[in-house]
């Protein structure tokens, strides 16, 4: 009897899938498992890993990449709003780095950076992130015999920004960090392995159908990598805390946004396009590994997946007429459907990825012996 109920519900789910999903999914790239990628050079990865945890990549050696992209916390942090360089405070949530190599373009919540190398350059040099001078960073790294040796091993046949093969430069440093990011990809994801519970399958049908998530969260990366306004409420902390507010104002100055003293909202993609219709749009985030990346949204306003699902179920948040995406409509999901959807969302996360800080990471510098006798 029980078996029959299950099989009936599976049939119903399958029918729903067959009838509804083509209506939606046909217009959008289908979701699917992540494709294989070429394995990166392990020596370059080792160098990149050392750099990822190295605070000397920041101006005053106070923070490393891992400070805001903590491997114990899904390569983000638990704070709604990210940490930032000392003397400033961030106004956005730190996005995860997991699977970022699959994104391929349009990095950052407002999609400011089109290339992973540019993204790294800006994270290292931006005054609110690591506030580092690239040339000074290069010379710091050249002072560390361990880094010099790793560079020779990983890049012995390459010269990037130098006449010398195997020499550390800021080009090499960013390349090695990209090689390390290549290793931060999902492992053993139930969805990718086709290993979904019945409930998760029901959730997938909703994802593609009634809930309409696939309209933006599509492709194997679960994102169209386009800007949308879903009406996420502002995080009041951004404006209540003058340090966060002036960091945001500094960013708008840097980006040439007008009227910057008067905005009391995150203008999002408008920062890039300067087109009023783009106010409040943010690039669709991936849904992969979201089990580990709470809180959610560009400003961390939602603590749990349930809150996120509830938000979409209501048709999103409020905004001025014409700004919110027309795809946002009340979904009328019942509690069982919401649970199914959540079950599916959780199936997009694989084994936890934890990368312990390598040994011997330090902020001091050894003197080069026989300084006068050796070449720089």
């Amino acid at each position, binding site marked *: 009897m029980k078996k029959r109920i299950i099989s009936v519900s599976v049939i119903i789910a399958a029918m729903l899938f067959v009838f509804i999903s083509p209506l939606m999914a046909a217009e959008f790239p289908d979701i699917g498992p992540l494709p294989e990628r070429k394995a990166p050079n392990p020596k370059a990865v080792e160098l990149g890993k050392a750099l990822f945890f190295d605070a000397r990549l920041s*101006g005053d050696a106070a923070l490393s990449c891992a400070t805001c992209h903590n491997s114990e916390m899904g390569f983000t942090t638990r704070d709604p709003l990210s940490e930032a360089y000392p*003397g400033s405070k961030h106004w956005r949530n730190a996005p995860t780095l997991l699977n970022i190599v699959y994104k391929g373009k349009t990095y950052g919540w407002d999609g400011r950076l089109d290339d992973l190398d540019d993204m790294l350059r800006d994270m290292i040099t931006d*005054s609110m992130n690591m506030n580092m001078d690239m040339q000074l960073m290069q*010379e710091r790294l050249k002072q560390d015999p361990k880094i010099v040796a790793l560079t020779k091993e990983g890049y012995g046949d390459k010269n990037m920004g130098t006449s010398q093969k195997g020499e550390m430069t800021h080009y090499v440093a960013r390349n090695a960090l990209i090689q390390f990011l290549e290793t931060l990809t999902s492992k053993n994801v139930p969805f990718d392995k086709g290993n979904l519970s019945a409930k998760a399958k029901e959730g997938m049908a909703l994802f593609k159908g009634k809930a309409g998530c696939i309209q933006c969260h599509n492709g194997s990366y679960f994102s169209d990598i386009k800007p949308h306004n879903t009406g996420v409420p*502002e995080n009041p902390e951004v404006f209540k805390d003058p340090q966060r507010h002036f960091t945001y*104002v*500094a960013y708008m100055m840097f980006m040439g946004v007008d009227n910057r003293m008067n905005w009391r*909202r995150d203008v999002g993609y408008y920062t890039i396009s300067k087109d009023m219709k783009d106010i409040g749009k943010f690039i669709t985030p991936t849904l992969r590994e979201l089990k580990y990346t709470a809180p959610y949204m560009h400003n961390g306003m939602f603590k749990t997946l349930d809150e996120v699902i509830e938000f979409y179920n209501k048709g999103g948040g409020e905004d001025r007429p014409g700004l919110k995406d027309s795809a946002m409509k009340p979904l009328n999901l019942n509690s069982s459907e919401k649970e199914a959807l959540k079950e599916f969302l959780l199936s997009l996360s694989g084994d936890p990825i934890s990368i312990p800080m390598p040994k011997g990471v330090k902020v001091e*510098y050894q003197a080069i012996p026989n300084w006068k006798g050796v070449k720089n």
Partner: protein
Amino acid sequence: MKKIFIFYILAVALITVILSWGVVMAEGDPDMDPALSALPEHPPIPTDNPSGKNIYPSKMDKKQELGYLLYFDPKLSGDGSISCADCHDPKMGWGFSDPISRGYPGTVHWRNSQTVINTGYLNKIFWEGGTTSLEAQAPAAAEGAVAGNGSRDMMESRLRFSPEYVKRFKEVYGSEWPLIEDAYGAIAAYERYLSQPNTPVDKYMKGDKNAMSAKAVKGMVLFKGKANCAECHNGPMFTDEKFYDIGVPDPSEFFENGIQQVTFRYQHYAKGSTEDVYRSHKSDPGIYFKQKRQEDKGKFRTAPLRYSKYTAPYMHNGTMFTLEEVIDFYDKGGGEDRWGNKTKIMKPLNLTKDEKEALKEFLLTLSGEEIRMPVPKVPDYAPMADWQPKK
């Protein structure tokens, strides 16, 4: 014949006039040297950054007062932890007491930090003399990677979130919001306030013959004559603001200190040395960086000597800790000719012990009382009055 005679008369007259102006030409002298003289009562005030002509210790005007706050405010640095006063500390002669300046946290500078006192009278600032106004010096220091490492956007935004600054900038500049350029202008105005034109040597030159001891007067004669200091250290600021290699030795910090080696290479890389120079040089090549000319290697702008009583250690790399060491260095005819650019002016002086003491006595008359100002309470941040989010 008559014409030639008239020409001779004119030439002799011209030379007489030049000599009577007090212009001195020493033996083998490549140029004419302005005479030593008293400082004007206040430094020149640029027309594009007007401020009061008042100087320390009189009351500051509004712009100088704003500059005073900004000078001591760590908001004007990358991580909000250091201010101008951290490398130009009133307690350290408005410079820094280590041979090499401390630099930004996580870094170290690579040259000696110079005093701020009397810089309003200079036309060339920094050891390379490449900056020609205090208004241009402030951003170079606040934004340089091994100095303040601040970004304009961030620093300007910080000032805008201090209601007291908003009020003060409005009063001084009439602007709705503080602008970083105006902050640099106010700092420059404050630095002009930090002038000291009434030292013993100034009083002496203005006619008060009791202002200097007999020994100091003897030192002044040596300064202009046998020791030949006035060849380069001349004019009211005791500098010709020209460039010379005198063979100052390399500081030991470069050999012993890893972080110092980082900064050394960084300067070469950032200032655009050729690859060969970047890879092979181990000494500071000074104004070579300006035009990358071999004949400029090792040259630095002549240091002003005023306020030097309080500004030890000396030289561009702080390798000399006392005035005695400095005098001995010149007495020996300077240091090693590292680049083939060492100035011919440097020759052994054969000064006696007595003469060295007299010279030192004179050098000390170039400083008045020590100038000290307390660290002010700098303005706090506050949220905007209408901070509440709105869509």
